[in-house]
């Protein structure tokens, strides 16, 4: 990120006098608006403006600002139900918001525009800067200035030091060293800019990885009842969301059976009924030909088949029923998934549709109570676990309306052309497992045969997740490097037996700790040359400069 030399990144100390190379860099100057330069001039100006640090900053801000509505309005990709609710509650407003992509912020064209411009801007400023840094890496530290005493840090002492011995010592301290006839120049801390570049490049890679994951990955949701199986094919999902570049054949061909699901709840006290643990036991085949293995699926422990991950998202009850129609035929036998209408007690509701029933089609509304307790003339559930499961059945007969071709929800009964069977009560007597309800008018009977549970699963394949993680880790590493490493220079001049040492740090705010480091370097240099005349007042020069209090900052700011 480069512009004028007073805006040189998260970290660099603007020191015009110390950086002659900066004036050679064309991007350093504020791009002058081209006057009558034609298309090329304008393009060049546009590119420079786009890749300037100020633009990158503004884009970064816009990026953040742009994501705010994504947290304020419900998002289709996160919660389509709440979006539909919004449309119902305030249709005109919702329509306008929808025109501005407020319900799809993160896939909207304007968000993509910010994202792409930021991408370009980052790329456009990282690469030239990398080139500059590469050249600088090979450049030698500059020769010693004439008067070392004028530097922010300096010290002088007497000793039998040679240019070679000083250079060797500084090299041992991992300084990059250049020597002259009577001086040594050393520099250290190049990792700072390296870190800075690493950070910015990693951000680019991260953006790439996220994009690639969206293109080549997919997600799917499915609900599975105990005892049932699932095979990873597009058709098997209740909802399938593929990236643009995903084909049906590319899905990992695994399959599994849900053997058992277990939910544990707090049994007593204030938090009675709060879930403690969910655990599903699966029998998994990684591919049609591989042997099956048993896997315990938990909330934080997804099933991993070669990078395709399956997560446990939710659960519920699936009571099983047997329906016999008016002619004595078994018209329905199996489980039906119920949705909890109350999370605290898992009172759940579901619908059974029996289109094959004769003479009339049958439909049932079911209320499932996992732990049933009578409450006056009514029955309620008091606990989410299935301690005393019962169902309340509301039977209907007539036309289920399935022939119209209109898709229907499996959780809703369209009662327009149905009539209740018998006297409809809000609180029918609950059935226990094994109980049978004889339907009025000889329409048949329904038997409550048992209780199973269902789990909802999400399968996700995202080839970008590992690259994204690596890029994010590299970004943090680069960030830490660029925030902690200081660029610093030390010069030593030796005339006869008089040794002068000067130093400065080229990094904003690094002065205080550099003072300490400088004092250590001076001690280190003196150490090898035990000078016969110890000079406390010289040592004091070095120490005096050390900021003794936080207020002594003017030399560093």
């Amino acid at each position, binding site marked *: 990120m480069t512009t004028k030399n007073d805006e040189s990144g998260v970290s660099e100390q603007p020191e015009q006098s110390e950086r002659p190379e900066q004036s050679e860099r064309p991007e350093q100057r504020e791009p002058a608006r081209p006057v009558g330069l034609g298309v090329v001039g304008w393009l060049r100006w546009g590119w420079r403006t786009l890749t300037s640090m100020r633009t990158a900053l503004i884009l970064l801000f816009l990026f*953040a600002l742009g*994501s705010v509505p994504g947290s304020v309005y419900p998002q289709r990709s996160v919660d389509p139900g709440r979006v539909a609710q919004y449309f119902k509650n305030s249709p005109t407003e919702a329509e306008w918001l929808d025109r501005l992509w407020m319900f799809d912020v993160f896939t909207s064209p304007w968000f993509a525009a910010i994202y792409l411009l930021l991408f370009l801007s980052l790329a456009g400023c990282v690469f030239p800067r990398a080139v500059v840094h590469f050249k600088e890496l090979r450049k030698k530290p500059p020769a010693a200035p004439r008067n070392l005493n004028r530097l922010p840090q300096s010290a002088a002492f007497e000793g039998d030091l040679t240019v070679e011995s000083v250079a060797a010592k500084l090299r041992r301290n991992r300084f990059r060293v250049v020597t002259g006839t009577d001086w040594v120049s050393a520099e250290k801390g190049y990792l700072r800019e390296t870190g800075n570049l690493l950070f910015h490049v990693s951000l680019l890679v991260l953006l790439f990885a996220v994009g690639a994951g969206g293109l080549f990955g997919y997600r799917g949701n499915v609900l599975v009842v105990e005892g049932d199986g699932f095979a990873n094919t597009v058709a098997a999902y209740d909802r399938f969301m593929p990236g643009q570049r995903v084909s049906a054949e590319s899905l990992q061909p695994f399959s599994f059976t849900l053997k058992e699901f277990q939910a544990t709840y707090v049994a007593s006290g204030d938090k009675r009924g*709060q879930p403690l643990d969910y655990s599903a036991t699966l029998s998994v085949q990684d591919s049609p030909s591989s042997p099956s293995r048993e896997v315990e699926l938990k909330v934080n422990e997804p099933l991993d088949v070669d990078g395709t991950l399956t997560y446990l998202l939710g659960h519920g009850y699936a009571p099983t029923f047997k329906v016999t129609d008016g002619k004595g035929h078994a018209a329905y036998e199996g489980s039906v998934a119920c949705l909890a209408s109350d999370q605290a007690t898992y009172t759940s509701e579901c619908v059974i549709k029996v289109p094959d029933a004769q003479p009339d089609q049958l439909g049932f509304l079911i209320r499932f109570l996992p732990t049933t307790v009578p409450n006056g003339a009514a029955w309620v559930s008091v606990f989410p676990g299935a301690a005393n499961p019962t169902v309340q059945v509301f039977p209907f007969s007539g036309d289920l309306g399935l022939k119209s071709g209109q898709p229907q929800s499996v959780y809703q009964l369209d009662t327009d052309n149905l009539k209740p069977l018998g006297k409809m009560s809000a609180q029918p007597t609950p059935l226990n497992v094994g109980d049978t309800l004889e339907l009025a008018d000889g329409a048949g009977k329904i038997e409550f045969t048992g209780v199973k549970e269902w789990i909802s699963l999400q399968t996700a394949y995202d080839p970008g997740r590992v690259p994204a993680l690596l890029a994010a880790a590299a970004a943090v590493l680069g960030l830490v490097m660029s*925030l902690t490493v200081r660029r610093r220079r030390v010069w030593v001049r030796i005339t006869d037996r008089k040794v002068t040492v000067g130093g400065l740090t080229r990094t*904003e705010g690094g002065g205080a700790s550099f003072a300490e480091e400088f004092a250590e370097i001076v001690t280190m240099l003196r150490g090898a040359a035990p000078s016969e005349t110890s000079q406390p007042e010289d040592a004091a020069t070095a120490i005096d400069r050390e900021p003794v209090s*936080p*207020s002594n900052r003017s030399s560093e700011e």
Partner: protein
Amino acid sequence: MPPAQINEGLATLSDQLILVTVLLYLIAMIAYALELAFGRSRTAAAVKTRELVTVGAAGSDSSVAGSAADSAAGAEGESRTAPVAPAGWAVKAGAVAVVISWLGWAANLAGLLTRGFAVDRWPWANMYEFVVALCFASVTAFLVLLTRQRIRFLGAFVTVTAALGLGFAVLFLHVQAGPVMPALNSYWIAIHVTAAIIAGGLFLVAGVCAVLYLVRNDGRMSVLPAKEQLDRIAHRAIVIAFPIWTFAVIAGALWADRAWGRYWGWDPKEVWSFITWIAYAAYLHARATAGWRGKAAMIVSLVAFACLLFNLVGVNIFFSGLHSYADVPK
């Protein structure tokens, strides 16, 4: 799987320890304030004189000379206007304040630990526990910095902020100790939330500095610390906190990849963590940019801090999302 057993005795002890903490922080705050008000004139003058000498010795480096002259003028001005009789007892009050804040710190720590032992899990899984831990982290950050630098002048402001934070948590956020939902039952809580707390504590110290910076008048004498000091401490705290915050967000993404089936999904908490991250990055850039340094950068840092607070309070209370573990009492 954690046992549902809760040690009620320990849980009550934890609540009482937090009240003791609030009290100790308030006492410490008063002692710090006494030192600020009555003990500073002498120390300030002494420090300034010393600085004057040092800077003078540094010679005529042109970039330094201007500011040296400024601060020299300021120092002279201050020492001239300063009352000559500083109160010795007030300086002692400062030392006492430090001891009391360490005591408060210990009570705060004990409050956290007893809560953790009472429920046999990491004690920062809901908003009450999180805010208590956050206040603990900010006081820790201050006390640790204090052992290395002379920043006692910040004490009053940090302790009063922590006391207010704890008071807010006790009054409005408190929930009975209890087990957590299955999603939180993971070692990631130790990594992700701990990192968020440490970063948050440091950001809080920086936020206190930024507010003082903006409140303080230039030029005139003030009991408030000098602007350069505030600027420097805020910067240092943010430089340390920023990578930790980055780590916390990445750890959150890793956890989300385990728990929710995607590492990033623009959940409200994710959006606001990201916004906060950008805002602090903007502060770091601004401070390195001539023309933005000083007041403007400080304002950016306060905007960032506001985003952080909104992420904690606003997102937990106003938005519903996957990250709704805060368990805010209704």
